[in-house]
């Protein structure tokens, strides 16, 4: 009666999105590497890095949308998982520097030499191996989310209370990582990376490959999210979002569902962070700042909460706007624009870009394909009202 999980997740819009990301992932690096510099279609390296950053943000936005748009969990601390993934990758990259650091110490990163640490703290062990770091990228955010979620969901902390304590979590981590004694470089964070898996992080080829990988990760994350939201699990999540206690009285263990998506979403955010760090070249505690997490939620709102494509799109659009407005004569005014954008989107486009488009487009389509994105988006008002409870 119901098609296979993969075919089910790939409806027309989803297929188109995957193809688009794949095309971006292949064409941008190719044009950067193969076309001559100065050609009209050549994408300069700095734009590859920039778009790589946008793609990582899109993954983060997806992870937030999965829990907020579909399960009603508004995390104002998702930046913490992103940053933890980033730190795990950053630690690997630091260890790869080896004796090329300014002090030439083969084991200790520069900031440790600098502060007279005589040996590597235990939690840095293993990060010289890529597989270990890659595992940690998933494990550390996942574990934190699991423990945090286990406590919070079991005690039925919901709504704004949950939002505020996620904020407290990321704020506490921010303060902790600022501490130099914590062993992660304090405010200066981890930086000055040399290579990744033996390739120079600054090289154009590496950048292109990282970009391609980020696009690939976005596609995979998108497919995982699609698979979830189009499965019965997705229906349960929406049920939890819209009427949590009803779901519970039907015999669903709501906390398990929340814990599952929350942990999964944290892992996705961790991967996004891990891909982000080598492309921007630095990870510092400010990634934990509550403001960053709130901004990421806003990308989702702008793109369209409860629409996966919208979340990804929102991340790209807002960050593109940010890049655009922070240069040139507009620079002093960009905060006005950004602030106004948030206000106007929530007032005039409460469903976000994609949600609004869908509700405009859908009646015009002859077939009433029930894209859950559309229906989910249509119910935004209702679900948000529910969350007030």
């Amino acid at each position: 009666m119901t098609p296979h999980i993969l075919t089910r997740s790939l409806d027309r819009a989803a297929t188109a999105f995957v193809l688009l990301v794949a095309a971006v992932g292949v064409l941008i690096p190719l044009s950067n590497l193969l076309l001559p510099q100065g050609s009209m279609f050549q994408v300069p390296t700095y734009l590859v890095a920039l778009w790589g950053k946008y793609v990582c943000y899109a993954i983060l936005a997806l992870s937030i949308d999965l829990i907020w748009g579909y399960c009603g969990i508004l995390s104002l601390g998702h930046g913490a998982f992103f940053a933890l993934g980033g730190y795990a990758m950053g630690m690997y990259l630091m260890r790869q520097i080896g004796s090329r650091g300014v002090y030439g110490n083969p084991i200790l990163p520069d900031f440790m030499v600098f502060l007279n640490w005589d040996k590597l703290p235990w939690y840095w062990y293993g990060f010289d191996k890529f597989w270990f770091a890659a595992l940690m990228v998933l494990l550390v955010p996942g574990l934190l989310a699991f423990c945090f979620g286990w406590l919070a969901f079991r005690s039925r902390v919901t709504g704004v209370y949950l939002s505020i304590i996620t904020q407290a979590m990321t704020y506490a981590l921010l303060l902790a990582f600022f501490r130099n004694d914590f062993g992660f470089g304090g405010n200066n964070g981890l930086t000055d990376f040399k290579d990744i898996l033996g390739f120079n992080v600054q090289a154009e080829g590496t950048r292109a490959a990282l970009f391609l990988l980020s696009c690939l990760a976005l596609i995979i994350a998108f497919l995982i999210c699609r698979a979830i939201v189009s499965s019965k699990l997705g229906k349960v999540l929406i049920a939890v979002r819209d009427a949590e206690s009803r779901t519970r009285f039907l015999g669903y263990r709501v906390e398990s569902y929340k814990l599952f998506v929350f942990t999964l979403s944290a892992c996705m955010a961790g991967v996004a962070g891990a891909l982000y760090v080598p492309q921007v070249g630095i990870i510092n505690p400010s990634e934990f700042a509550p403001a960053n997490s709130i901004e990421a939620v806003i990308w989702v709102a702008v793109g369209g909460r409860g629409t996966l494509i919208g979340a990804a799109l929102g991340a790209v659009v807002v960050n593109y706007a940010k890049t655009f407005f922070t240069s040139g004569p507009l620079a002093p005014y960009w905060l006005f624009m950004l602030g106004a954008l948030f206000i106007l989107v929530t007032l005039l486009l409460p469903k976000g870009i994609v949600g609004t488009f869908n509700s405009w487009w859908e009646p015009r389509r002859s077939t009433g394909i029930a894209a859950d994105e559309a229906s989910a988006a249509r119910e935004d008002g209702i679900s948000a009202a529910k969350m007030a409870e």
Partner: protein
Amino acid sequence: MNVMDTRATSAMLYLDGVHVSFDGFHAINNLSLTLAPGEMRAIIGPNGAGKTTMMDIITGKTKPDEGTVLFDGTVDLTRLDETRIAELGIGRKFQKPTVFESQTVQDNLLLALNVDHSVRGTLFWRGSKAESERIDKVLETIRLTDARNRLAGSLSHGQKQWLEIGMLLAQDPKVLLVDEPVAGMTDVETHLTAELLKEINRNHTIMVVEHDMTFVRELGVKVTCLHEGSVLAEGSIDQVSSNERVVEVYLGR
């Protein structure tokens, strides 16, 4: 009053000496009530009599301060949470119709089906013929076959009530707790609902909370009247409605 004694009663639901208070307000006061297997019981009582709170206690939403609440003669419900109690086979319809408004009628029933409710189970759920037949049957019972692809949020109030009862049916519990099923319904709908409940009662134990005396009369079952958190009167509708104290409570003397 140990467990062995109550087993002897073989009651489906057994409440004895239950007390609950919120900030000094005694919502439930030494409440004792027994529901036999296969029985349908109507609960009446003025506002604030503790009807909904009693359901909250049975379904694990509220923990009683003291007292015994047993299901099926053996299971102590006061120690379990909502999910576990639902899994045991106690279904509940809320006072305010609560359905998943952003999902279709069919999906609402699908979610209610008594199948694997684990995360894994739902993630890799493929559906089966048996399931879709069950859904078709329930849809027919609650007269919503034509609306199966409509969003639940777009249903009328009465239809939502039915959908919620349908969800209870799909859940196939041993006991159904039904809170004000006909509130806001037309006379015709009320009549149909009474028929529906009677039909369901053939295979299920039911506890109905209702204000509508016509409806209760139509059900024609044993009635319990609650007042200030404890049982005021019990018996047939005629007995109860002729009870002086009940009249006093309802009419406010």
